[in-house]
């Protein structure tokens, strides 16, 4: 139950979930449609033959080239990519899921892209999603307590975004 037939089972269970697949990469990954993410994760954890009961890590990669010169040569469109690393503690098997979100919701800067929160599937995702929200600015719908975790509560901006400008001063302390 590896490779192609695993993906076949996944598509049978959650139609339209798998948007793209790449088996040759060092860590083969599947790209999942953002709206189908929660359903896929729930299937992977509960009803899939290999129980993916461990969520290792959630990462947000900000694909955006701030300065126009390099931006021209780049092959991809600016977007935010969420990478979920899962693994099964029983059969020692890992899986990488990726979803692509617009950098800003319907492209007006300031309002964050939204995706369903997987905290209901893995309790461990709670803090990981809070960190992604805090540093990369992704709004997780359905998260029990979405607050900043590493930066102070009243911090503006999302530091890990490529076009992030360090604030000039914060509570009287000089930023730049």
């Amino acid at each position: 139950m590896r490779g192609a037939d695993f993906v076949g089972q996944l598509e049978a269970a959650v139609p339209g979930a798998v948007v793209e697949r790449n088996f040759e990469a060092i860590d083969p990954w599947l790209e999942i449609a953002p709206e189908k993410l929660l359903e896929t994760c729930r299937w992977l954890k509960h009803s899939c033959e290999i129980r993916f009961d461990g969520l290792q890590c959630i990462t947000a990669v900000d694909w955006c080239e701030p300065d126009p010169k390099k931006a021209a040569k780049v092959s991809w469109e600016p977007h935010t990519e969420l990478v979920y690393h899962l693994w099964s503690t029983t059969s020692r098997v890992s899986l990488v899921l990726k979803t692509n979100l617009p950098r800003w919701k319907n492209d007006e800067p300031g309002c964050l892209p939204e995706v369903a929160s997987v905290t209901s599937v893995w309790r461990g995702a709670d803090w990981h999603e809070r960190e992604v929200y805090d540093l990369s600015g992704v709004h997780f719908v359905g998260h029990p307590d979405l607050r900043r975790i590493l930066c102070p509560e009243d911090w503006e901006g999302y530091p890990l975004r490529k076009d992030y400008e360090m604030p000039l001063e914060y509570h009287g302390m000089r930023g730049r």
Partner: protein
Amino acid sequence: MTECLFSAMLAQLPLAAVDWHGLFFLLFAAIACGAAVMVVLTDNVVRMALHLVLSLGATAGLFFLAGSEFVGAMQLMIYVGGTLVLLVFGVMLTAQTQLVALKTPAGDKVLAGILGAALFAVLVQSAVSIEAWRRPGLAEVAAPTATPLGMALVGVRVDAGDSESDRRPPSGYLLPFEIVSVHLLVVLVGAAYLARAKRRRTPRTVELVASVESSQPSRVDAGASESASSVLVETGR
């Protein structure tokens, strides 16, 4: 040579015989009354407790001064060590902001003043009228040490006179003493039972591991190679 010089020098000093006993008596009395008054006057509950400690401590001092150490030590232990600790506990537990500063309205103060003055007058009048107390100087009082008290409890009146008339019944006070203490114990247990916390402690939502085996996740996919690999890869690379 030095002694006589010293004693001569001393002779001139106007050293009236300082009656320490009287001095300490007045000191302790002043502290006791002063603290008692302060207990009434202050509006901070915890300050009240502190003044109560001072006044009861001073009364213990008075007992020691009168030579009856047993009663003094008893006063210290029972009143100051026991009751007041309980009182301070009570104050601490309930000393939220609204109770800490109790403002007594003026009307009550006047009323209390009148009542207090009346009681004071009665006491002074009765104290002065007793002949024996009017003479200054110290009544040669026998110092009842603890042992005779203890023996009297058991019924052997060692300190009383030999005359049979006033000898207590042989059983002494032991029986009533035991009855009272058992009674108090029952009261304490009852009080503790009544005041127990009504709400149950939130049961800890911890499901203890039934047995080790059940918790051991079994290996589902026997074919998986020893080291982990991606599920998307055909065979363990």
